[in-house]
């Protein structure tokens, strides 16, 4: 662990200007050792999330989705790679930018889209919306909309696994801006102090809404902050789905075998605004295009093709299938009924007393 933290400190001067540096760090973790089915499934999931989010943007502009809607486009490799390293009974909890992670954890695109449309068939019965997707059946503990609010909750889920001796692992996603919240620091302290099987996965997309990390952090090397709590940490190329999977596998092993937490910092980038209402005037088109050159789907497709695991025909067939699935989800959402008026008053209490 101390070697990790020493490395981070040595890298600090380089990472302080992360905005000017595409996330090219590979650290040798990207070799393809998985079988073709696993790899193609990862590609398929990223493609599904990309097309799902594009459909969300379209539906939002048509007024079918309301409120805030935070898209995951550009960050697909983080959620897909990390969640692929988990068992189905492991817990995932995250922020309000969670459509992609929800799908990667196995939630139905129909139920997620219906939730965004505010329909009774939505995963949260139309009461949560885009920021509050939940599915107990796949141990998806929700999207949470107070920045950093999910981090203590994740710590609690990990505490419960240890208490019940179930060997389940919890992965907690949050953005780099959440690192400035007390909840992050309080949680890391407790997790290492009590050896909780929790993976704190920071998706560093370099902007907290419209404020760049450079304008919000006195010290931008997020992984290095783990040294304050003697936590193991790792910086990962968040545009490389295999790097994400392998780093998460290492963290999962540490959590399951040694009951120890890990802080992963995934260097990634969001292509869209913070939410659908963000005009994005705080960054240039050129900056976005620079990151799009390392688009996670494009990069992974090229690697699969180089390794003879994917052809253009495979991709075309997958595209057609994914588009149909997304269209079907939108149609399902469209045709689903609104919640009954009586639903307004249900689920306030588990034991209503009057």
């Amino acid at each position: 662990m101390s070697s990790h933290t020493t490395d981070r400190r040595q890298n600090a001067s380089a990472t302080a200007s992360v905005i000017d540096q595409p996330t090219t760090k590979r650290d040798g973790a990207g070799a393809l050792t998985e079988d073709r089915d696993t790899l193609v499934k990862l590609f398929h999931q990223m493609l599904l999330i990309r097309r799902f989010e594009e459909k969300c943007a379209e539906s939002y502009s048509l007024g079918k989705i309301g409120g805030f809607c935070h898209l995951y486009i550009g960050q697909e490799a983080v959620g897909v790679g990390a969640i692929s390293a988990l068992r189905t009974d492991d817990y995932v909890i995250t922020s309000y930018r969670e459509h992609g992670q929800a799908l990667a954890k196995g939630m139905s695109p129909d139920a997620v889209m219906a939730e965004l449309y505010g329909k009774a068939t939505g995963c949260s019965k139309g009461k949560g919306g885009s920021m509050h997707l939940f599915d107990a059946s796949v141990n998806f503990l929700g999207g949470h909309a107070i920045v950093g609010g999910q981090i203590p909750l994740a710590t609690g889920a990990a505490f419960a696994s240890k208490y019940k001796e179930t060997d389940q692992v919890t992965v907690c996603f949050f953005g780099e801006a959440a690192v400035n919240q007390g909840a992050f620091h309080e949680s890391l302290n407790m997790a290492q102090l009590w050896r909780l099987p929790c993976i704190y996965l920071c998706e560093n997309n370099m902007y907290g809404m419209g404020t760049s990390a450079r304008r919000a952090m006195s010290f931008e090397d997020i992984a290095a902050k783990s040294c304050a709590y003697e936590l193991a940490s790792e910086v990962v190329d968040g545009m490389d789905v295999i790097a994400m999977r392998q780093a998460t596998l290492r963290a999962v092993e540490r959590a399951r075998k040694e009951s120890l937490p890990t802080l992963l910092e995934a260097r990634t980038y969001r292509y869209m605004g913070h939410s659908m209402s963000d005009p994005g005037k705080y960054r240039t088109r050129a900056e976005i295009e620079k990151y799009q050159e390392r688009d996670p789907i494009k990069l992974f497709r090229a690697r699969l093709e180089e390794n003879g695991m994917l052809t253009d025909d495979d991709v075309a067939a997958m595209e057609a299938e994914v588009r149909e699935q997304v269209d079907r989800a939108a149609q399902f959402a469209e045709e689903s009924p609104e919640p009954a008026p009586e639903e307004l008053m249900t689920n306030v209490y588990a034991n209503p007393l009057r």
Partner: protein
Amino acid sequence: MAVITMRDALNDALREELARDPNVFLMGEEVAEYQGAYKVTRGLLEEFGAKRVIDTPITELGFAGLGVGAAMVGLRPIIEFMTFNFSILAADQMVNSAAKMLYMSGGQFKIPIVFRGPGGSAYQVSSQHSQALESWYAYFPGLKVVMPSTPADAKGLLKSAIRDDDPVIFIEQERMYGMKGEVPEDADFTIPLGVADVKREGTDATIVARSLMVPTALKAAEELEKEGINCEVIDPRTIRPLDIDTIITSVQKTNRVVVAEESHPFCGVAAEIAAEIQERAFDYLDAPVKRVSGVDVPMPYAKNLERLAIPDVPQIVAAVREVAYL
């Protein structure tokens, strides 16, 4: 029935519920090795071990949120705040996570958790350690708020709170830990949440009081009895959900109401009770509802000023005389 202190009644409730359900655990600052800042958790570490009775760092937001997360996946945490003043640091997790989780997940994730500890006025600890916060928490649908006024109520209500599947804010009164009373010894003794108790029957005026104001109101009622004024004292015990029916039934009988509370008057629980009474029983009132609240200032340190800031027996007596036009 044994005569024990409020502190020991709470300790018994915790012990019995820890023994009853292995998913119950207790966490907070100084609850284990130090035996509790107010000794409410005395002996529990020895009996249940460090796995279930857990000392925390001073990190209220963190351990409150940890409790909510543990409750999401099947545990039943009891989170002690050394005092409720410190719960303000944890309010985001109590309000935005605990209170709303069941609703915004469409009924999928219930949060069976108790946040407990002392609240209200204490002895000469000034503004940051001496305040009543029940109106904050009672504001939020999804939370239940409980405030016991006797050792028996403390035990029975805390046991119910721990068994309840919703987040319960359980506010003990710091000045009342040493108060003694009869408490049933049966391990299955509970008092249902959401049910008020008539602490004294009467016909001439109703005094609605909670927590420390209950013994204060009972003393006021004794004083008034000497003048021939027969007061009914009602303790809601649960602030949310409020048993307004018991209050209204009393008002229909006495036609006069005083609501006594330690908290500040503005946006307080007494204001809510007064509003509910005028909505439901306006025609039964022979006088406007009178509030006796803590003075609308931060709590001072000096003994004489502190005494002036907290409602006392003479203030409640005067208020009853006022609604009785005496």
